[in-house]
């Protein structure tokens, strides 16, 4: 922990101050990707110690949820990871379904996979765009948000919302695909492929960007596992771990896809892994649209008010940031006794303390951004 103490500054023979510097970044600062405060101890320009301080977006969602019925919690889960609301919806619904023993129809499972893989692309675009903006590559930012906008348009057609979808509900999804949506989706995927490819060549193929990103914030695979890192952050270090393949859920075993891995674990690899994951998500959505058959979108015989039997259930999915889990404790009443979210970025963010040390202060926002934190999910 960084302690602030008052003492006389250290000077060299000529009286020049050579003392270390303690600076405070945030909580409201454009380079912190949200409301995070970093206390950094500097030796010249090099960071010797860094401590993130979080909690500025703590809304007590877990406490609020104890006073809501199971269906009323779905909109709360939208506000967890507000860049990828579908994931929190889905993870929560899976936990409720496990608790209440609900079987989800196949058609609904396909819709969930399609929307969540599109969400993965949209979420990675946000991350890649902000990495571009951090390094001064404004074009990448514009490309990324253009692609993201097309996907968000698809979601708007589907459920009426652009950010907080509440699309996945316990027992199924809220709406079926509208007429002509699948064709629009295929168009958007083709567009995504073209522009992700352009971004890859323009940014990650650029020698200035390579020089800026390579070898910065290197994460050792052993360290990644020990600190509980998951998702692209861990996979960029070579940790071969993806819940979609290693703990298959929903209809994922029916699709053919690869898990992109990095080798060096630096910022460059983390960005590259996200680029390749976008291609894999495109592949999954195309296969899902191909296999999609009409059917019910909601389980039959769902009660108006869920009263699951007492017990606790945990379920997790692979979100754009890592394994996102929801732990629910039921006491048999219509409201959960305890609702807990295992958010991937909470664990990933704690790595800033390790990764930031030894790099210059100018690299700190890049390192933070490469972990792709969303503070709605970190602070809950």
């Amino acid at each position, binding site marked *: *922990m960084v302690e602030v103490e008052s003492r006389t500054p250290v000077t060299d023979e000529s009286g020049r101050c050579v003392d270390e510097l303690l600076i405070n970044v945030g909580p409201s600062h454009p380079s912190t990707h949200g409301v995070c405060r970093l206390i950094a101890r500097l030796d010249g320009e090099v960071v010797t110690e860094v401590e993130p301080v*979080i*909690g500025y977006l*703590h809304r*007590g969602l*877990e*406490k609020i949820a104890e*006073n*809501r*019925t199971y269906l009323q919690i779905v909109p709360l889960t939208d506000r967890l990871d507000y860049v990828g609301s579908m994931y929190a919806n889905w993870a929560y619904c899976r936990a409720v379904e*496990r*608790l209440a023993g609900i079987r989800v129809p196949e058609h609904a499972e396909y819709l969930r996979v399609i929307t969540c893989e599109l969400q993965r692309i949209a979420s990675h675009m946000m991350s890649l765009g902000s990495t571009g903006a951090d390094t001064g590559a404004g074009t990448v930012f514009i490309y990324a948000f253009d692609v993201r906008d097309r996907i968000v348009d698809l979601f708007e057609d589907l459920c009426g919302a652009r950010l907080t979808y509440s699309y996945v509900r316990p027992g199924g999804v809220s709406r079926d695909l509208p007429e002509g949506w699948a064709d629009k989706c295929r168009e958007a995927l083709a567009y995504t492929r073209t522009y992700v490819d352009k971004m890859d060549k323009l940014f990650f193929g650029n020698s200035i960007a390579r020089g800026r990103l390579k070898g910065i914030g290197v994460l050792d695979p052993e360290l990644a*596992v*020990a*600190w*509980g890192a*998951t998702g692209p952050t861990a996979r960029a270090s070579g*940790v071969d*771990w993806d819940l979609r393949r*290693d*703990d298959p859920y929903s209809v994922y075993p029916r699709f053919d896809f690869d898990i992109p891995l990095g080798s060096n674990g630096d910022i460059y690899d983390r960005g590259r892994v996200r680029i390749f994951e976008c291609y894999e998500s495109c592949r999954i959505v195309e296969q899902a649209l191909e296999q999609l058959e009409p059917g019910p979108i909601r389980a039959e015989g769902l009660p*108006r*008010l869920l009263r699951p039997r007492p*017990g*606790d*259930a*945990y379920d*997790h999915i692979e979100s754009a940031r890592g*394994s996102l*889990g929801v*732990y629910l*404790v039921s006491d048999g009443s*219509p409201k959960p*006794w*305890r609702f*807990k979210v*295992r958010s991937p970025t*909470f*664990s990933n963010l*704690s790595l800033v303390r390790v990764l930031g040390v030894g790099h210059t202060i100018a690299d700190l926002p890049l390192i933070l951004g490469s972990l792709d934190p969303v503070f709605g999910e970190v*602070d*809950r």
Partner: protein
Amino acid sequence: MNVTELREHICETYPDLCPLFSLEFGDGVLTVDPERLRQAAVDLHNFGFDLLGMVTAVDRGDAFELVYRLRSRVLSVGMFLKCRIPRDEPKAPSMVDLWPAADWHEREVYDLFGVVFEGHPNLRRMFLPEDWKGHPLRKDYVDDNIIRRPDYF
């Protein structure tokens, strides 16, 4: 590996943990006493559970139940480690030396439940300000700002 195989595997390696192993909603759960919590965690860590997913607590009225979610990449299986600790003196050993990931998760449980983790290097509040009174996720927590929503069902 599925949960049944995991149970057999654990029973072979650690016969004393075998009767404490149960199944709940398809997940393996190991429920231990506070005295055995640390040893059980060390055993499971050696057994191959290298990922600590989360640490949390549940207010069970008469006691706090600590919940550790563990996952093994080698065995490809997840499980729970649970332990009930007395409410009037909520103390538990810290797991930071086994899984560094426990650092922030234990701070979160300390912040929201008031459970003291002995041996934790930096046990401070995680989300709430340092001068906050009480631990909000306890069921007996009172705050003037909490408005109870009327039941419409």
